[in-house]
């Protein structure tokens, strides 16, 4: 009998923790309420074997609204946002640990993009200065990969396998990446904003997609004469849909 009671108690406790809280969607801010170009109270895609239909109920103007002196094209029917434009970085603190000479260190982060209406998208990357100590006295140069015929640059990846080739660079692997990243030994240096270089496109696609993922691996290899210190930089990723 007591075991029955205890079993009931366990079930009750489990139920309490399995049931998740439910929140309502905020429809307005405490400071203001705005009527947008359209208010879709219902809508979406309907289909059967014979037809496809997309509709919106409750729009003040379907897809496009105009007024005296301007026209704006926006809203659900105009830009069919089945998949909202979304950009994620799995880890913003890409930690290399303690850097040791001639011993390459790598760390990675995953970029994820979902997009629908935009049709096309791009993700660019640029470093806000070289990997450098906080006092800005010492810097780790951007990689040139293995050098010689395997010299890479901001727009061309080449193999970087030699432990005596020093610098800082990245490899990217996954969906919608540039073709020159043939395998995980191919690296490029980041473009440097302080040297007026243009951001490099690291992901782009013309196809609609959800959860397009690419893993970026950052690599650092320092020479024995590299002064000791904590080296840091910021990598700026910008995701934009097309026009």
């Amino acid at each position, binding site marked *: 009998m*007591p075991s029955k009671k*205890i079993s009931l108690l*366990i079930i009750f*406790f*489990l139920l309490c*923790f399995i049931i998740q809280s439910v929140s309502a969607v*905020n429809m307005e*801010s405490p*400071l203001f309420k*705005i009527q*947008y*170009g359209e208010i879709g109270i219902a809508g979406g895609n309907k289909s059967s074997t014979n037809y496809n239909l997309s509709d919106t109920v409750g729009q003040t103007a379907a897809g496009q609204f105009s007024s005296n*002196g*301007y*026209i704006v*094209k*926006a809203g659900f029917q105009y*830009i069919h*946002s089945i998949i909202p*434009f*979304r*950009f*994620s*970085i*799995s*880890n*913003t*603190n*890409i*930690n*290399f640990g*303690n850097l040791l000479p001639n011993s390459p260190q790598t760390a990675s*982060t995953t970029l*994820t993009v979902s*997009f629908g209406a935009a049709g*096309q998208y*791009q993700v660019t990357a640029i*470093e806000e200065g070289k*990997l450098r100590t906080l006092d800005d006295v010492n810097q780790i140069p951007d990689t040139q990969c293995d050098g010689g015929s395997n010299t890479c640059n901001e727009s061309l990846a080449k193999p970087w396998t030699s432990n005596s080739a020093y610098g800082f660079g990245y490899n990217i692997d996954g969906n919608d990446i540039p*073709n*020159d990243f*043939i395998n995980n030994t191919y690296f490029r240096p980041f473009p440097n*904003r302080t040297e007026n270089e*243009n951001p490099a496109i690291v992901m*782009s696609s*013309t196809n609609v997609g959800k959860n397009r993922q690419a893993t970026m691996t*950052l690599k650092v290899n320092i020479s024995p004469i590299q002064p000791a210190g*904590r080296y*840091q*930089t*910021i*990598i*700026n*990723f*910008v*995701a*934009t*849909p*097309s*026009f």
Partner: protein
Amino acid sequence: MKNDNLKFKIKKIFIFFLIFFLLLFSTTKKIFAQQVSLSLSPPLIETIIKPGKSILIAYTIVNYGDPTVLTTKILPFEPKNNFGQIKIKDEFEGPIRFSLDNANFNLGQDFFLKTNDSEQLLLRIRAPEGTPEGDYYYTLLVGSLPQFAQEEKSASFAKATIGSNILITVTQSGQIDIKPKITIFQVLPRLRFSFFGKTINLFDSTDSIPIVLIVENKGKNLIKPEGQIILKGNFGERAKFDILPQNILSQSQRLMLATPSADLKCTPNSKLKACQRSISLIIPGFFLGFYQLSTSLIFGENSPQISASTSFFAFPMKIFFGFTIFLAIIIFIIKKIKNEE
């Protein structure tokens, strides 16, 4: 009796620990590295505006990642190439004025967003009196601030920014300058040669047909072509492919995409021409004989229609060459046997 009591006590302790661990595991949350996940909508705004007028656009930014501090800014952009990619400029320029109508922050000021929280950004766009007619292209950027870790390790800190493009046409009369031109409409054949001054495009019958269509906008305002690519065969067969309506910014070119298109499985070292450049349309199938391809584009009501055409031959080259080699080997063997006899 004593034994029973002991058993019951052990059972109680066991059940107590079971509940304790169940509670512990169900309440302990997984710990991940600092993650940024942002969504911004709408992804694109197109507006035609008179000088002296202003409009208000409501954007929604949602934070699906860890709680973060965000900041907003507007920067101009220009097309980077003809694939729809953009190059965002480093500094603001142009006559269009932007501000946020939000009560608690403006452009360039930080705001905090919790996990799964959203904020409405009320962007006011104003074309001041005297703004020259033409197009102005900008991107609204909402970005996280990098979070530096206080640790004695070397590291890179990622900053995530998400953008939404704003295409503004300033016009006094509402008239749009439409000056389109088809610069490239061609197939990428297996073989191409000249014959009596005519270019002959030759495919194997089993090849997919890659087509490139590039349209140039020589006008002052952006245009959006609509139309079709039509394939006509010599046996009366006909197929239509819709061109996706995509904006072509003023004084730029764009590769148009058509649908439904086949997908090529390209490897990094592929020598296929279609794998080495961007393609508008890939038509799969078995082709035999002469084919004509044509396209016609319109740019809205009362706009000029432009068209272009090309053609190709398809011949079962692989089968033919295979059969020829097979025949040659057979003849060679027969001759050899006859000679030996």
